[in-house]
């Protein structure tokens, strides 16, 4: 998300980012994700301390395209290695080693293989981070005190306000119907909250109101 300069941002100080609810276990979260999808929402996400089997299907997400990025990385690694070995060994600085040809593909295989692995691995990690828009220091969800449990034992679903169908009331009602607990509205403060970085880290965020629990 591109951050507009402060000057143009004065309208609503804390626009709503989304509505988040908590579910008791992975099974409930999976059913809820399916329910939200069937209700027509597309801009939502589930949060869990570990990947949940079947969640991609439940959310209607296809295959990750990362494989293609890695494939391109691998091809580049092999070609770069072969070109390098040919140019350095046969063009720019040919050496006679036991009368062997200046360039042949056989002795070039190990270096080509290793560089293929290196560039593929870099493409895999770089591609994963790019597709996930990471590193991302600021995230409105970090304002929710409850949300810190998403990396421990909490299972959350957040419907985001960018969705066409989104209104706070609809989202709340849907989450409640799906059995969510601790439903809260998440606001987009648009900056790193200094309060969050100081003290004991359990500072209560500025405005999220707990709309309903249980």
């Amino acid at each position, binding site marked *: 998300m591109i951050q507009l300069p402060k000057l143009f941002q004065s309208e609503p100080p804390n626009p709503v980012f989304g509505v988040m609810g908590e579910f008791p276990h992975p099974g*409930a979260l999976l059913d809820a994700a399916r329910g939200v999808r*069937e209700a027509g929402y597309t801009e939502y996400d589930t949060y869990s301390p570990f990947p949940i089997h079947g969640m991609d299907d439940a959310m209607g997400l296809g295959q990750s395209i*990362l494989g293609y990025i890695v494939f391109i990385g691998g091809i580049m690694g092999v070609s770069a290695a072969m070109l390098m070995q040919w140019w350095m060994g046969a063009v720019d600085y040919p050496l006679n080693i036991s009368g062997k040809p200046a360039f042949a593909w056989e002795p070039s295989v190990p270096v080509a293989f*290793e560089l293929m692995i290196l560039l593929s691995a870099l493409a895999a990690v770089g591609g994963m981070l790019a597709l996930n828009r990471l590193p991302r*220091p600021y995230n409105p969800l970090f304002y929710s005190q409850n949300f810190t449990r*998403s990396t421990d034992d909490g299972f959350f679903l957040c419907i985001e306000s960018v969705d066409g169908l989104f209104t706070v009331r609809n989202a709340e009602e849907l989450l409640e119907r799906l059995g969510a607990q601790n439903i809260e509205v998440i606001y987009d403060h648009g900056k790193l909250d200094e309060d969050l970085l100081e003290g004991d880290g359990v500072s209560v965020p500025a405005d999220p109101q707990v709309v309903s629990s249980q």
Partner: protein
Amino acid sequence: MSTDTQNTDLGLSGDGHVSEHPPLVEGNYSFHDITELVAHHAEKKTPKLWYPAFGLAVTVTGLMLSMLAYLVWNGTGVWGLNNPVGWGWAIVNFVFWVGIGHAGTLISAILFLFRQKWRTSINRTAEAMTIFAVVCALVFPTFHVGRVWAVYWMLPLPNQMLMWPQFKSPLLWDVFAVSIYGTVSILFWYVGLIPDWATLRDRATNVWRRRIYGVLAMGWTGANRHWRHYERAYMILAGLATPLVLSVHSVVSFDFAVSIVPGWHTTIFPPYFVAGAIFSGFAMVVTLLVVARKIYNLEDLITINHLEKMNIIILLTGSLVGFAYITEFFIAWYSGVIYEQYAFVNRATGPYAWAYWIMMTCNLVAPQLFWFKKIRRNILVMFLISINVNIGMWFERFVITVTSLHRDYLPSSWDYYSPTFVDVLTFVGTFGLFFTLFLLFLRFFPMVAIAEVKGVMPEADPHFYDHSHGDGHTHEAEPTAVPSPAVNKEDEHRG
């Protein structure tokens, strides 16, 4: 022991139902308990014993650094190398450390691809071991070049001499193989750590911990849209690391096999080196985990079943290595080449026969004790055998390197090689370096992959909650919005 149980233990049945196996995590833990159990060690006050241990490790590292400084000042003549034996302890130690590293990649990558879920409690430690072992290994070739300030000549960098490295040399392949192995291992390790950094970030109680772990976690939230690419990346990295680890030790063996020295010039070397590397690496993992699980009270996560499985792999790879020793002898005889035959007879009966028989006893005989289930599950005995294997595998590299070189084609140049105190203390010093890094890891890192362990618990399977077990009340709350046909369809698809 019974083969049947073993097969199911190893998960060879391949159906992913955790419940059919002995539990991977013992003692009825919830997700939160797992977080507590692991994160607690990175958060609590430094244990008193850690300081003297760390002090000792740093001192020994200092010893290594002073020995290296001594070498740089005086030249490689301070090592015991002589004319026929131009490769002594330096290459022995290099191959030893690289080999140890391989078990980490095996556990993290190959076992991942084979869906061996038991790996989750040990892979983090094993990957750490890989990286630290590669660091220790790199010390030796780096300083063996003598003029360490010119070590960058090994890389294809433009330079004022207008020269390029010689790509037909296996030694240069090794530069690529080992440095890329180190890099990819670090990437793999880091990707695995991201969710756990986030866990530590979210639990942090002081500003600096939250900032540091926050930067390391890169904003991870556990979003499913992130897990989707993350899991794919992890699988691809495992798929890349698997051929990589096999290629690295194959390339290391080319350093020997591509030459024409009798005793080195054999095609069996790549598989034989790879098996030996896995063998020694698993022994090192057992040595470290037996101690670490005790000190850190992780007996419920790193169970006796995990250790037993590693002992089975030690038994398997140890037998492969032993078979390779015998095959080498057979091929030397069968080749009809007198130099080859002499090299092997000399190994077993010549001036280095003592080293040869240490190797044979430690590698071929000792691991065979693991045929007995009682011994595989006995902590003390497995600890002793694992140390024994580490010693044996060091001697294997010593035997291969030194016995093949000390008598070359020309009897007038035969000589006996012994190391100097600089050789010995540098090698001892690398253990200091290894344990310095390992103690730092134990202190500040989540030493078990928290997210992965949670993922293999039965409670992590969404269908765990479909039937009678689990809390029934939550089910009553959901179904209104979820039309049942979709659920059933999904069940068929999954089931």
